[in-house]
């Protein structure tokens, strides 16, 4: 329009008009291109800014030694329940024998001292306080961060959610700021620590400002099942006390102090399937006693959830070559389905990662993963030794496995660590970390790492109660 007005009043000759037209066109295209280029650069910059999630440090809880569960105490606790019949005792001792635990796992105080049928609220709080305040004190001390600097606090404990929430309890203890953002997750099972990390990652990415987050992941083990339903007694035998605290940040200036960087996180929920949903469910037995029922379909649900997770995780983690091989195998399997041949060559996970932190759900889980992925003894050693030393500490188990690797000085700069967690629902969560500097803290393993890996894998329960596997014997 400007041009038109110009021509109206100044009567520019036609040839000049055409040249000016072309010049204007040229200039406008250049501007548009520059504009779009700068916009793309701005978006990339904006994307990078404060979006990374760094793990500054983490602390795993080591309970006091008077809480250890040696074989004598275990059998004493089992035999305390007078409602059980002989086959039930045998069943429980079998579970204990096959658990893969050593005599050094820890139990909650009320259970050890014989008060499992009348646990008070105060004792639940005491168990939480012991674990949380010990780990948080150490975490704040090691990182040099003051509690008042924390912007985001997440607590995940599945079986205990009092009012006021456990996040408020921590805020009260450490006198944290008024504008702190808190979330108290509950009921999310053994996979909850990765869900908490997912939450932190999302808040970091949405806030766009520099934040410090603390995640406390633990479990309340005082909920003892005192009935006679076998599927519910399993949880009594399999879970042990433990917990951890993590400190995460998206502040790039703290990157040099951070241990690991989060690369990706995948969550899969198979709750839509009824059998997956009800394979681990808290309910009352026929006598009205509350417990967590673990059904026989648990391993199948875990496998399905894991494969669904792997399908999404693999393209993000594995190199192109391995993905191509997998795709080729899939096609071949699809093609050979008509002939009935089965191709079950394992996916080479090690091509994309250096270390694997597997949830210590039990010997069966670890063995299954070892076989399906063709992993070596070295790869599953951290998980096996963690199961042996600490038992199944629920959501915090992967952090104990990580701590083992760190104490053994296996974690070097640029290594990639894959954490896999399972949980009720049925969920499978996995996340990939990149190690930012050589990690060498002993952590909770400091006092005993030199005794591991234990070459002589004597199962103390097998030694004492191995006769239980003989069907003909009776209990004295």
């Amino acid at each position, binding site marked *: 329009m400007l041009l038109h007005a110009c021509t109206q*009043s100044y009567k520019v000759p036609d040839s000049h008009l055409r040249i000016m037209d072309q010049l*204007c066109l040229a*200039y*406008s295209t*250049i*501007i548009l291109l520059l*504009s779009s280029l*700068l*916009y793309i650069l*701005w978006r990339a910059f*904006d994307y990078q800014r404060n979006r990374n999630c760094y793990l500054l440090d983490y602390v795993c809880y080591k309970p006091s030694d008077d809480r250890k569960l040696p074989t004598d105490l275990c059998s004493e606790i089992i035999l305390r329940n007078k409602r059980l019949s002989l086959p039930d005792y045998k069943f429980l001792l079998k579970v204990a024998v096959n658990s893969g635990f050593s005599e050094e796992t820890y139990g909650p105080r009320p259970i050890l001292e014989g008060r499992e049928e009348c646990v*008070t*609220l105060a004792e639940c709080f005491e168990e939480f306080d012991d674990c949380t305040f010990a780990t948080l004190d150490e975490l704040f001390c090691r990182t040099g961060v003051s509690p008042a600097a924390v912007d985001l606090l997440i607590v995940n404990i*599945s*079986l205990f*959610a*009092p*009012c*006021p*929430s456990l*996040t*408020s*309890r921590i*805020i*009260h203890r450490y*006198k*944290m*700021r*008024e*504008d702190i*953002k*808190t*979330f108290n*997750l*509950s*009921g*999310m*099972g053994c996979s909850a620590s990765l*869900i908490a990390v997912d*939450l932190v990652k*999302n*808040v970091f*990415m*949405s806030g766009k400002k520099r934040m410090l987050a603390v995640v406390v992941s633990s479990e309340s083990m005082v909920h003892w099942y005192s009935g006679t339903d076998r599927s519910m007694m399993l949880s009594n035998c399999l879970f042990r006390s433990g917990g951890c605290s993590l400190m995460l940040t998206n502040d790039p200036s703290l990157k040099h102090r951070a241990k690991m960087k989060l690369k990706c996180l995948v*969550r*899969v*929920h198979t*709750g*839509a399937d*009824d059998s997956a*949903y009800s394979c681990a*469910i*808290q*309910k*009352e037995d026929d006598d009205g006693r509350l417990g*967590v029922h673990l059904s026989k379909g648990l391993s199948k649900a875990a496998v399905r959830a894991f494969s669904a997770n792997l399908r*999404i995780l693999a393209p993000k983690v594995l190199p192109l070559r391995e993905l191509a091989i997998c795709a080729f195998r899939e096609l071949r399997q699809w093609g050979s389905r008509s002939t009935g041949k089965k191709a079950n060559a394992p996916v080479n996970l090690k091509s994309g990662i250096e270390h694997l932190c597997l949830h210590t759900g039990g010997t069966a889980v670890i063995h299954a993963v070892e076989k399906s992925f063709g992993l070596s003894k070295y790869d599953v050693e951290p998980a096996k030794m963690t199961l042996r030393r600490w038992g199944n500490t629920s959501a915090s188990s992967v952090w104990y496995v990580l701590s083992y690797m760190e104490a053994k000085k296996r974690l070097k700069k640029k290594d990639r660590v894959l954490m896999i967690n399972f949980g*009720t*629902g049925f*969920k499978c969560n996995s996340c990939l970390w990149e190690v930012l500097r050589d990690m060498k803290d002993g952590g909770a393993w400091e006092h005993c790492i030199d005794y591991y890996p234990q070459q002589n894998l004597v199962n103390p329960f097998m030694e004492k109660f191995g006769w239980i596997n003989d069907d003909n014997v009776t209990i004295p």
Partner: protein
Amino acid sequence: MPRSTTSLPEFSTSVKLKYVKLGYQYLVNNFLAFLLVPVMISVALELIRLGPEEILGLWNSLHLDLIQIMCSVFVIVFVATVYFMSRPRPVYLVDYACFKPPLTCRVPFSTFMEHSRINNKDEKSVRFQMRILERSGLGEETCLPPAIHYIPPTPTMETSRAEAQLVIFSAIDELLKKTGLKPKDIDILVVNCSLFSPTPSLSAMIINKYKLRSNVRSFNLSGMGCSAGLISIDLARDLLQVHPRSNAIVVSTEIITPNYYQGKERAMLLPNCLFRMGAAAILLSNRRREARRAKYRLVRVVRTHKGADDRAYRCVYEEEDSEGISGINLSKDLMAIAGEALKSNITTIGPLVLPMSEQLLFFLSLVGRKLINPKWKPYIPDFKQAFEHFCIHAGGRAVIDELQKNLDLSPQHVEASRMTLHRFGNTSSSSLWYELNYIESKGRMRRGDRVWQIGFGSGFKCNSAVWKCLRTVKTPVEGPWSDCIDRYPVDIPEVVKL
């Protein structure tokens, strides 16, 4: 103000003051307009006077190079793009649904007292509960879950799950029907229920019932008290900032069944008298096409946590009484602490929502107190300037009274809260949604109106959310008030004699 014996001079001074106040507010809030409009008018007049040829002559005399023009155009375009693209994604509230309890669950006063007498053998406790009920502000139509109607109540895991399924699934079914949303389109699910946290979680229960996708991002918040609804909204908003083109469902509820206190401790009997069954399901979205049919847009969420203070932390506390029965202990300082928590919250939210006139006054009073005379009374900003509607958590009569006093609200402003307390009782985190539905059902919600939701919770937390109405809500509104809105508002006496 000088006192006068006759009424007329008082009226005239108050009227004069009112106009002065109005004039001041109008001036300060539209300051920029007052500044720019005369300038623009004079420029326009000048342009008309000059005529097109002279303007062109002026333009050419500037000797602007084509390059310079193009560069300035480019800078303007670039800055505008950056500005528009770095704004946070808008979060729309497409619609929400509240659970309407069935008539069979009603607990009129007579039923409540009869059950109380039979279940609780202690005379003093029964009398105490009666006194609380008389002054509670609750009506005769509030509802308790079926398990509590049994004599004695049967608070098992199974009956708690049954209550959860009843309230949550009803609310979600209604929400899906209202919005036409398919379960497979749900990307984010946030559930908050303070006092009932089964394994698997309530979010897993919803995923199982509605067969949601396996990559749905679910979170289950627990233990966070009556303000947890706004905490869930905050979480959903954060997630919607990160994930584009997503739908989020927030479910707020409180499950009464496992928490019915059956002991004798008075402070723990209070929740029995006040808490009632309720649930709400809210659909939030950041999809642009939902903007057309969305009811509200989320403007802000502000959270304040007073847990660092001992008194605040202990004022709503779950513990065991002397007989080992667990219940929620409400301390006597609850009102005072609520007032303090509110003050902290409005200190943060004030500058973000108040118009310039109020902020200026507040700033001047602050400066005056600091520099001139510390004895000046602090100026409490008038929040009625910033919001048209208020949804105050119907925690109890005393809470609503306290807030009405602190914020200097009229009875009409707190009517929604009082009537919700009367009709539904204290439904914990979902009460704010019942109140919002009341305002809509009364036909008071107009396009452009701003709503302030305030929730209090154990810990002690005070959370607020500010919404802006995007389209006038036409009556009649389908919801829990649809069959009784014409009876409201009712006059609630101070004491109902039982």
